[in-house]
């Protein structure tokens, strides 16, 4: 998978990403239609993501989505979502600055995550299109795979350095587990 000299994956802090937290009754057809109209993305199934981490919808909980959009567009999108959902019980807020986003990239990306998160990272058990909210060592995190070798990970801003440090540490050259 990787030799003793190269890291299992590289870890890159991405520039600010627009994010809108959206809470509403996702089982309601009108709500779904309004969300899809406002964002252009299908409401994702449980533990999955539609679109991308730059423009898409991530499933957070049974009544919560994360809307990904441009950083500058986020406040306006929060507003238009609120407008689209007027009359429906909902909450739509720009939370772009609450989190940090990392790109973890390399052939060992599954193993880097498997060292830190209690998630079955085996191909077949987890892959592109799916999203997990889980624990990354000692902090909360969410991630999804963009391809077999690219993964995007989100954590709270205040612990961004910790996330970067543990990810980089887990990706140290020569520490491949050989699981996947």
């Amino acid at each position, binding site marked *: 998978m990787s030799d003793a000299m190269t890291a299992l994956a590289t870890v890159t802090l991405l520039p600010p990403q627009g994010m809108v937290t959206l809470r509403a009754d996702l089982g309601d057809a009108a709500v779904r239609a309004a969300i899809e109209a406002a964002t252009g993305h299908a409401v994702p199934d449980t533990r999955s993501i539609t679109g991308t981490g730059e423009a898409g919808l991530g499933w957070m909980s049974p009544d919560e989505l994360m809307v990904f959009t441009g950083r500058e567009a986020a406040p306006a999108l929060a507003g238009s979502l609120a407008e689209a959902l007027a009359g429906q019980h909902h909450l739509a807020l*720009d939370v772009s600055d609450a989190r940090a986003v990392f790109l973890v990239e390399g052939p060992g990306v599954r193993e880097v995550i498997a060292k830190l998160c209690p998630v079955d990272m085996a191909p077949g058990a987890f892959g592109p299109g799916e999203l997990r909210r889980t624990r990354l*060592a000692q902090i909360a995190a969410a991630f999804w795979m963009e391809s077999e070798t690219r993964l995007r990970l989100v954590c709270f801003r*205040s612990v961004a350095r910790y996330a970067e440090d543990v990810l980089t540490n887990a990706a140290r050259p020569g520490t491949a587990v050989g699981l996947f």
Partner: protein
Amino acid sequence: MSTRLARGGRRIDRSKRVEFTFNGKRLTGYQGDTLASALLANDQMLVGRSFKYHRPRGVVASGPEEPNALVALGDGARMEPNQRVTTTELFDGLSARSQNHWPSLEFDIGGLNNHVARFLPAGFYYKTFIHPRPFWKHVFEPVIRQSAGLGPAPKDRDPDTYEQVYAFADLVVIGGGVAGLHAARVAGAAGLRVLVLEQTAHWGGRSPVDGGTIDGQPVQDWIDATLQVLEGMENVTLRTRCMAAGIYDHGYMIGYERLTDHAPAPGMPRHRLWKIRAAQVLSATGAIERGLSFPGNDLPGVMLAGALRDYVVEYGVSAGDRTVVVTNNDDGYRTALALKEAGLVVPAVLDARPEATGALPEAARAQGIRVETGRAIVKVMGGKRVTGIGVGLQAGEGSILEEIACDAVAMSGGWSPVVHFWSHTGGKLVWDEAQALFRPDPARAPVGADGLPNQAVGGAANGALTLGAVMTDSHNAISEVLRRLGKSVSDPAPAGDAPAEAPLHPVWVMPQGAGSKLKSKMWLDYQNDVKVSDVQLAAREGYESVEHTKRYTTLGMATDQGKLSNINGLAVLSDALGAPIPQVGTTTFRPPFTPISMGAIAGEARGDIFQPLRRTPMHAWHEAHGAYFEPVGHWRRPYCYPQGGESHAQAVHREVTATRTSLGLLDASTLGKIVVKGPDAGRFLDMLYTNMMSTLPVGRCRYGLMCSENGFLMDDGVVARIDEDTWLCHTTTGGADRVHAHMEDWLQCEWWDWKVYTANLTEHYAQVAIVGPNARKLLEKLGGMDVSKEALGFMDWADGTLAGIPARVFRISFSGELSYEVAVPASRGLEFWEACHAAGADFGATAYGTEALHVMRAEKGFIMIGDETDGTVIPQDLGLGWAISKKKADYLGKRAQERVHMTDPTRWQLVGLETLDPNERLPDGAYAKASGTNANGQGNTQGRVTSSYMSPTLGRAIAMGLVLNGPSRMGEVLEFPTVDGRVLSARIVDPVFYDKAGEKQNV
């Protein structure tokens, strides 16, 4: 002498010499050696001293069951005590030292204990050191501590790194012997995700040493072929040097992989802890040989028969030229045959059974080996190693019929299945009378989350001890596992073939009629020096439970956890009690199987990543400006910013004064910020807070108290009404996550039909408190919105722009000064903070830390969650009755606050305290003395200090405290004894020390 034989040794590569040291002595071995085999090859039979009597100890076993041969491995920061030489792979530069002796291994003064052994029976400590009572603490315990413990604890920081990994499998096979390999192959062929954990560096277990054929192939050939198949299976993961350490609930397992112990590679992880979820576990862990309890069985040179054979066959090492084999079963003869084949002398096989006519004894006889049945070892000659033995009758009392000179004794008392993993999660055992062993009871298996069995046991671990039985049993076990997982078995059961073995004859004491003198020389637990006589004494003293006996005698409590001694010990106990073995039972095996490193448990959590450290957007600025940080939850907040050699107290003094007289700036980003929105949000907040939040006008702020269901004050903060159905709740720094969870708990579990959504926006905003008489001037200078008294009155908030940055400004004060808290997007927090400093330079803008914040709030008599509250304090104790709505029908904590104890007028109440000496600060937590003593003879108290500071503003010490009837005792003087024996006097005063009228904040 123990030595390296001229030939043999399947594991070693004689072309690769390896240098190592033992107690500083330079020795050589071969690649493939364990430290044990290399020591024996160098005639280093004596490797340590026992725990209690400091008896000389040599290698007994060849695997993880080794009780004796523990060494301190490595030097300096890498020194690790109590490492088993039998499981330590030799590498170039290995350095080992023996333990528990002084001044040297050869001459040990602690060995004097040996000569007073009869005065140190079981329970000696319990019996002896009881009286006089004070002696325990001051005399006995320090002395015992001095002499206790085997290896020294390392003192330096561990330079190595460790890591962990999460793994998932349909089936985890524990043990890579022939039973485990077969099971893995069957499961792999069935398409299951299989993980095989083998603790050693080799596959196949001990079968290649013991011989026989599987499906007509020599065992090793079969192992090689099976491994090749397994390695070709994508769905099978094979790990050597990876020990299953424990099984827990619902198929959760811990594996312990030793990555670089055998080949140190600094910078690489040393150990890796596997956290595994397994749908099913198959335990193919084999069996451990038992010793025999004959007098002198602890002398170096007395070894397990299987181990002796391992050293000859695997490593080409003999424990001595002449080895007497003593056994109660046929398997022991394999050792005699192996020694003979290696060209060594076996003067006799002493078989405790009345007759021995099985295939193996006959083979031994055919080799010309003298076989004596009905015989026992009744004496072992030698000091630091065996020089000979005395032969007697097993049925007798110990008379010596004959002496035989020898260098080693191979003993075999039968085999005990390794049932540890079955026991870890509650599987029960049955006593197999015919084989004299405990094996897993299939009717009482460990169960998973669904209540169905989630573990099976195959091979020797299940009591199937001969090769044929091992393979059949393994096949049955994996068939059962596959059935549970809805798969069918395609492979046939392999046929194992090895000589048939006659039943063993249980021998728990040798000779059977030994008197107490001999029994006091029969060791059960080598490491902890527990002898047959100790267990029998415990039984005589009334210890009937095996668990109690274990603790009383320390049997099985050493680092080997009684792998050799448990069964022998409980059999002796059973005999002494006259109760059958199954009735006495065993102690329970608990994880880990063998000790695992603390480093592996900690994993990556060390140094910079020991714990997540939360940093605000301005953290780097604080660091650059010399902040002295204090932990607040996982945050690091500046406590103060010492400048130019200031002490912390001086810095706080400067920060408070600057803020009170001109302008202070505080990074308040850590404050919790939770948005609560929905048609029922007002109703929800009315329940959450003690006061009314639903009536708060849009654009206004209100201070609120939050109580637990039991009425105790749990958090406080300012709530702002954002719009018709949206509120923003500020919480304490430490309370943000807890309060958010508290809200969701009530919304999800109790008021699930209320239409309320919450979102924790704490990290989305950076927040800056702009405090002091010049606060407004600064905002005006930053520009962008109207912050005049008229536009933004006290307890108003407004959205706008400051210094070109979108801002939400709350006009609230936690200091009593004119004060604004400004929230900006976190990504612009530093920019805003720096803009405040730049624009505020004219006003001497001063960054202040948490201590100045505390001082200023205390000067104003504001409470602090965690200082004035401790989980037992209600708002009414703190004079906060004004913040409790009398109109509301209910709020969380309301009914609790009506309980008798909560309305008790003698509850201590918040007051201010002024020491009579203004320069003398009351210690935090100090108690106010009352007259008389309580039921325990302790002095009565009538209050305690909750906060205490030197106030730069007032130029004196101030404090707050809870005092009996405090508010009605203004002016009274209380006495506070301090830990250094002085008594400080303080007067009860109003808790608001500064600007009682609140004029400063209202300008």
